[in-house]
């Protein structure tokens, strides 16, 4: 699904430059439940941003579904993000003026899903994340955990192939974290959605099938864990 070859990312201005990602080679297959772990500043978020097509690498090749991402226009990239990728951001990033239901419907509206269908799917998804009764509340009326669940509902309601989550549990308490992880594992197992997290939270890492350790912009270790569910992908390419 995702194949990164010799990916480099350098942030530079007039005075200095910072080599954030160094020759990353990585393949993520459909249905994986992968965590990218590493200390702050190791390049986790930058790598996720590149995989999510929010940012472009300075050099290297990124293949998504066997297509060279560098050749896509900004509108094509937007269409892929809309139709194939769901995002869960650390800071939830819900639209404050829309209710939980409307936030969940938003991406489907961008995709042109009919009003009736998107409302039904949004309600079902919100119920699946345990927020059916909160669907008409605005983000400010929800707790952090509930907001993150809405963000997850928004990410999965459009039935993406891939969900990218940048430290989704960073702002959550233990109970919310466990509940969110249960939900994501369940979605991965039932729907085969590929999950890629960035996290250094041990509770997240212990649920993963695969953990890619990143340090100073390099892949230090790529390990397959034992909790791989039957039917889930086995292959992973080490750097």
């Amino acid at each position, binding site marked *: 699904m995702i194949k990164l070859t010799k990916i480099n990312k350098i942030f530079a201005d007039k005075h200095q430059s910072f080599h954030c990602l160094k020759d990353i080679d990585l393949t993520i297959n459909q249905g994986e439940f992968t965590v990218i772990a590493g200390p702050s500043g190791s390049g986790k*978020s930058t790598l996720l*941003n590149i995989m*999510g*097509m*929010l*940012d472009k690498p300075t050099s290297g090749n990124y293949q998504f579904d066997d297509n060279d991402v560098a050749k896509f226009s*900004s*509108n094509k990239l*937007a*269409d*892929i*993000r*809309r*139709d194939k*990728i769901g*995002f869960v*951001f*650390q*800071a939830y*990033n819900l*639209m*404050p*003026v*829309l209710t939980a239901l*409307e936030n969940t*419907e*938003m*991406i489907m*509206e*961008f*995709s042109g899903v009919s009003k009736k269908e998107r409302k039904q799917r949004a309600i079902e998804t919100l119920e699946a994340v345990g927020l059916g009764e909160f669907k008409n509340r605005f983000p400010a009326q929800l707790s952090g955990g509930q907001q993150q669940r809405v963000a997850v509902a*928004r990410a999965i309601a459009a039935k993406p192939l891939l969900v990218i989550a*940048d430290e989704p549990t960073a702002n959550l308490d233990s109970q919310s974290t466990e509940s969110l992880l249960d939900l994501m594992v369940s979605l991965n197992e039932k729907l085969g959605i590929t999950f890629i997290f960035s996290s250094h939270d041990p509770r997240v890492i212990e649920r993963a099938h695969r953990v890619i350790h990143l340090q100073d912009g390099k892949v230090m270790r790529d390990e397959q864990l034992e909790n791989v569910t039957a039917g889930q992908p086995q292959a992973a390419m080490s750097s």
Partner: protein
Amino acid sequence: MIHKLALRNLLRNKRRSSLTSVIIVFAFSMMILFMGLSDGGHKAMIDIGVRMGLGHIIVQHDSYSDDPALQHLIAKPEQVIEQITQQYPTLTAVTRLRVDALIQAGRHGVALTISGVQPNKENQVSAIADQKAIIAGQTLPQFSQDQQMQRLGGIVIGETLAKNLEVRIGDTVTITAKPASGADLARSAFMVAGIFKTGLHEIDTFWAEVPLTSLQTLLEVPNSASQIALYSQANPETLAAITQQLTTALSDYDVQPWQTAAPELYSAVTLDAAGMYLLMLIVYVVVAVGILNTVLMSTFRRQKEFGMMIALGSRASTVSKVVLLEAVYLSAFSLSIGLALGLWGHYHFATEGLNFKEVFGTAMEAGGVLLPEKFYSILDTSKLTLSVLFVFLLTIIVTLIPAIRAGHRSPLAATQDA
């Protein structure tokens, strides 16, 4: 959903949106009010101006403007009038003969303009010596019907002139002028039939009117006139077209619209209209700055949201539409209220009128015309519609750049701290 987003974003900062809205409502309603009063004022100025010995259209001898001598009169004016009224039956035509003369009473003498008029016709179109302006005595038509007063021809003179000559109703004055034959000066006695007051110094001091036939006889120019004045109820555009057509049809004559015949009046109206356009410009700037300020503040604080929408797969155009819609909604709402308030104010002044003297304590003179104490608001619907459309267009124009910029936010903004 983009409509919902736009509306709710406007309500997100109620104070800012309300303040912008109030400014636009106030500016736009004031603009409508002033537009109506300005157009009403102009109409009053023109109406009263053309009735001060002028006309909407003036027809005169080709050389009269350059040399207003008795050699440059219209011969057989009734034939010209017939030609005009056959083509334009709605026009009212009056014939006038004017000459500079000397008026004397006892030891007093004043140089002035004598206007020979058709009393019954002139009385319908002129404001100089009509029933309202006469403060003593009678109008010329009333005088001509009064058999007891028929010893002499009647004359109506201005209030100041009457004071200067020390004459009263029934007194005799002598008019001296040079006749067309160029012979010795001709004299004729007239009885003061009426004294008028227009409020205009020039008219009240140096103007007198006598029956046309009396003056033709005195000047030895039977069946001749200095000018044919045409009056119309048509709108300015139709009037301009009529003037144009008459210019072609009466190629041997000089056909002048009131704008040419009374340049001071035209300048006053134009200057006042320019003031109105300046006010409209200020309103447009206020609306543009108000909308731009709201949109800029609003978009500046929502960079992360725009980035998030892009990150989630929204097209740039969708984000831009949200921003544009916010401006359009704010503008539409404010303009609707402003329009309603402005029209309400216009209705009040269109029915009740604005009493200028009551408000400013004095009557106002402009372009050689004393404005009526009260005038009424008149709204040109096409001008109003254009203003509304222009403000809408302006809203879109000033919002376009912030909207496009919002649509081109990097999706990375979604991942950054607000």
